[in-house]
């Protein structure tokens, strides 16, 4: 066995101590604090969710009241084709109610949006007096199904008749 002098002994003891501390931090304290950090994050998330759920519970009556008002918005049911057909028939019904002369009407695709909803677009072209167009727009915005004018272009058909040409994209929102 090699005999060490005092300085070497102190040096080797210091190195050994540092090594032990390093090993302890790496393999014992490090993983423990890492795991504690993970649990802290989980706890924070859980607290946030609980706060959100408590707020929902607090406003339960109010939410259920509002839900009754928008119950019709969930009326689009069935396959994508069925939903698109329902939207088209609703738009057509509103156009006819407002005495809008439809020259062309066709589906313009669908897309998923935030909140798990899907929008179905309908393109509609037609002609009418300003009053009828306003009636049509009002009918769309107040429909029992969630319909919305996404794009609309109005222009004079000619300078004398007062008839306007309408080119619009109407969308219907489905929640199911």
């Amino acid at each position: 066995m090699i005999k060490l002098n005092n300085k070497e002994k102190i040096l080797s003891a210091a190195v050994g101590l540092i090594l032990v501390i390093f090993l302890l931090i790496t393999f014992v304290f490090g993983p423990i604090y890492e795991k504690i950090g993970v649990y802290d994050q989980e706890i924070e998330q859980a607290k946030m969710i609980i706060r959100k759920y408590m707020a929902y519970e607090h406003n339960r009556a109010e939410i259920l009241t509002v839900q009754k008002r928008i119950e019709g918005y969930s009326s689009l049911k069935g396959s994508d084709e069925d939903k698109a057909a329902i939207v088209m028939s609703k738009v057509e019904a509103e156009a006819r109610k407002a005495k809008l002369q439809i020259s062309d009407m066709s589906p313009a695709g669908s897309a998923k949006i935030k909140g798990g909803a899907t929008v179905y677009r309908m393109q509609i072209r037609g002609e009418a007096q300003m009053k009828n167009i306003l009636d049509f727009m009002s009918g769309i915005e107040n429909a029992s199904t969630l319909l919305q004018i996404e794009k609309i272009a109005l222009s004079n058909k000619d300078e004398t008749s007062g008839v306007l040409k309408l080119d619009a994209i109407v969308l219907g929102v489905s929640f199911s």
Partner: protein
Amino acid sequence: MRAQYVSTKDYDNFSPGREKDVSMSAVLGFGYQVAKDDIKFILPELQIKKEMQSNARQLMILGVLLVYILIMLGATALVRLVQKQSYAANLKAKVEKLAENTQELEDITNKLKVAKQYKEPKASALTSLYELARFCPEGITITNFNWEWQKGFSFRGYAQQIPDILAFTNTLSNSEYFKGAQNRYTRRRKVEDKEFVDFEIVVK
């Protein structure tokens, strides 16, 4: 100095008459440090061994203390970990329980959020037309109206004089609803001796 026998009685009554009778060495003796270990009875090898044993014992105490501190730290960390684990599990269970009751409310709220963005007054073409009609003066005629959801709108028309158009643009841009309205162009045209100015206004 001369030594002199002094009896107890004489000592009590002794008073030095001359400086010669006083011993200074006795006084100085008080000032000197007491000599220690002047004479050592232990061998130097034994002395070193003793010191080595003492140092080893101190090192041992230090090591034990260090190990004790590390164990305490480890134990504290472990206890904390277990506490956090248990608290997280409790909260998770509570979340699951609350989710069962409030899932329906969350779904309704999500629907409402989606519906709200489509039903906002700003998201309505009808509201834009209504507001435009409210601000439109008699001298202005609107011929085209293009509106797109969340992208603003533009309209074209004509007036008899440029100041009418500029005043209309100013009125719109100063209003709350049409903030940022800008006149994109003005162009003069003549129709049967009458002069008109075409314009386009954009609102974003």
